């Protein structure tokens, strides 16, 4: 356009550019702390309000003691791994980040995580943690993640409802037979439309895993195969089919709401009095009723079969700009007394006696209940001496889905137990083979 680019026209076109440069001050300039030196770190986690505050307080201790400035990046769980995957692909991951225990093997298999063995035991004092917890971040014998806390599979029950019905709450020594009796009793007392417990036949880590470990099996083997056979699964589905038939547990249509700790979960909605898969921390804030936890029923040999999970892990990407500093930060979670106190139970339940003893005096009643219970489980696990649970292999998500599908199709009466079992093993084996 050679003809008359008038002054007004030019100004009009330039307006956008001016608008951008005028705003350059706020949010448009690159962040100042993007230098790749040994004195700074970016630490990413997901968490609620309480965890964010607790971590930031603990990180102040870290900066004071090591001189490493930490840029904190936190968000909700939604989209967390979308963002992380984009950054890994783009070559710009955070220097250290919080990891879902179930995903560590997938990431480790892609070679994007740092093998932490060179930092153990000099920088990261891994031996402080309970032996059963240590295994949570180990893939193929190498530590790729360090558990920030400990977790376990409890049964959560509504104490208020049980008290109203004058039913004695289950005790820690209860068995699967007691579970049948007590849920039938609750169901009967509550009347129609309400049930003793959730149908947990689909729940892999919250119910099936302890059941399998009570029988000397596990969800997965150390080499990443399915850790149990058709016999165990048939027995499992048959047990729950019996409960379903007697009306002790929920009909399958109520399961649609059981996947989330929200007000529609049958326990909060008052449709059941017991559930697997959730702890006090997530559910208690949702209801004015008093909730309590008890260990998943014991097997015939009296074992709980509990596997301490790592809660969440801390991992260092292979492309971390300051892996040495990140390793020091991991050790802050493991062994720094001040930081342990600051973090409370926001990092998961204390994964060591050291952390437990430091925390106990300062906890509130509800947290204390959680922690005492966690301690009890940790003792049981140590006493039972079962091998640590292997980390979930890549493709575990499809196995989980296969179990869920088989359990629900059986519950809806669309499939016999035998068909469900064989469908599960076909799908699960293909999924694990494809993910390798």
């Amino acid at each position, binding site marked *: 356009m050679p003809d008359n680019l008038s002054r007004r026209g030019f100004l009009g076109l330039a307006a956008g550019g001016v608008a951008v440069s005028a705003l350059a001050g706020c949010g*448009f300039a690159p962040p100042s702390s993007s230098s790749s030196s040994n004195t700074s770190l970016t630490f990413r986690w997901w968490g609620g309000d309480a965890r964010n505050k607790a971590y930031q307080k603990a990180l102040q201790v870290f900066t004071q003691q090591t001189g490493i400035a930490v840029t904190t990046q936190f968000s909700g769980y939604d989209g967390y791994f979308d963002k992380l995957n984009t950054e890994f692909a783009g070559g710009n991951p955070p220097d250290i980040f919080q990891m879902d225990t179930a995903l560590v093997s997938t990431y480790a298999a892609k070679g994007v995580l740092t093998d932490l063995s060179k930092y153990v035991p000099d920088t990261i004092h891994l031996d402080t943690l309970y032996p059963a917890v240590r295994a949570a971040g180990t893939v193929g014998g190498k530590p790729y993640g360090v558990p920030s806390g400990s977790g376990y599979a409890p049964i959560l029950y509504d104490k208020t409802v049980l008290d109203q019905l004058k039913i004695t709450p289950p005790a820690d020594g209860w068995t699967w037979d007691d579970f049948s009796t007590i849920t039938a009793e609750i169901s009967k007392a509550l009347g129609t439309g309400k049930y003793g417990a959730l149908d947990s036949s689909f729940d892999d880590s919250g119910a099936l895993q302890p059941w399998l470990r009570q029988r000397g099996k596990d969800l997965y083997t150390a080499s990443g195969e399915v850790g149990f056979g058709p016999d165990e699964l048939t027995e499992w589905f048959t047990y729950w089919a019996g409960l379903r038939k007697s009306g002790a547990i929920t009909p399958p249509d109520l399961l649609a709401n059981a996947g989330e700790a929200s007000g529609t979960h049958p326990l909060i909605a008052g449709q059941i009095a017991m559930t697997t898969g959730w702890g006090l921390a*997530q559910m208690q804030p949702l209801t004015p009723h008093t909730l309590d936890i008890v260990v998943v029923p014991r097997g015939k040999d009296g074992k709980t079969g509990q596997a301490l999970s790592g809660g969440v892990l801390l991992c260092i990407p292979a492309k971390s700009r300051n892996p040495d500093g990140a390793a020091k930060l991991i050790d802050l979670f493991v062994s720094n007394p001040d930081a342990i106190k600051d973090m409370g139970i926001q990092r998961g339940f204390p994964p060591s006696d050291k952390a437990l003893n430091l925390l106990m005096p300062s906890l509130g009643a509800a947290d204390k209940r959680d922690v005492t219970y966690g301690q009890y489980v940790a003792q049981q696990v140590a006493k039972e001496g079962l091998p640590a649970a292997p980390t979930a292999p890549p493709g575990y998500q499809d196995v989980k889905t296969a179990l869920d599908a088989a359990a629900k199709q059986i519950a809806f009466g669309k499939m016999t137990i035998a068909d469900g079992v064989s469908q599960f093993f076909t799908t699960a084996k293909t999924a694990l083979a494809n993910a390798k």
Partner: protein
Amino acid sequence: MTAPARRRIHWRAHTVLLLTLVVMIYPLVWLVGASFKPENQIFTTVSPLPLTFTLANYFSGWTATGTSFSVYLANSVTVSVCVVIGNLISCALAAYAFARLDFALRKMWFGLMLGTLMLPFQATLIPQYTIFYQLNWINTFLPLVVPYFLAYDAFFIFLMVQFIRGIPRELDEAAALDGAGHVRVFLTIIVPLLRPALITTGVLTFIWTFNDFLRQLVYLSDNSRYTVPLGLNSFIDKASGSSYGGMLAMSVVTLVPTVAVFLISQRRLVDGVANTGIK
């Protein structure tokens, strides 16, 4: 048809419409009602309106994520306004070129431009991230804003092309006879007539940018640079307990700017869409 019969049909239609309205508006009523309930009654009481009225969620929610919610609002408004400015300028220019100028391979370029509409966001996410990372733009608003100054939004270019095609060429020709070049024709003839389409573009761009989640999540990491959707997401964490009260209260706050923009421009928005041939 007699008068009473017509009235009866009227009533029936109204009843259906009202019932539909109730179904559509119930979630909003629930949201606003729940934001005034104490935390432990949000999911346990059936009534959508609070039995115990409290403002606590608003006070706690405003500061709950460690950064004040006004920071998120300011960031969201900054990003949205910049994107609106960028889209208006660049899309109008690009649309003028496609509708009025004759240049080599115009049809092919137009086809390619429309083709970008078919690309899902996920397909370009990682290449885009890599480019912006090389430019050292990560954790700034630049990746969210700059593309829109380069006519990135093919949908609105298309919308305006359709609109400009509806403006009689005689107007351009008359101006050209009076000695106006392309710049003057664009600024004095096309832009004033394009107003309905510009308003549609502005409003939709604002609302879509204000509500966008994934793009902002990927590019912004620092909490002081978070936008409203990222701030809201921080309330929800399935592992360590969620603060639903604060989140619901802040959701209500978040609705205010978008609803306000929509209400103010509602009539013109409809005009704009109706006149572009996109129906």
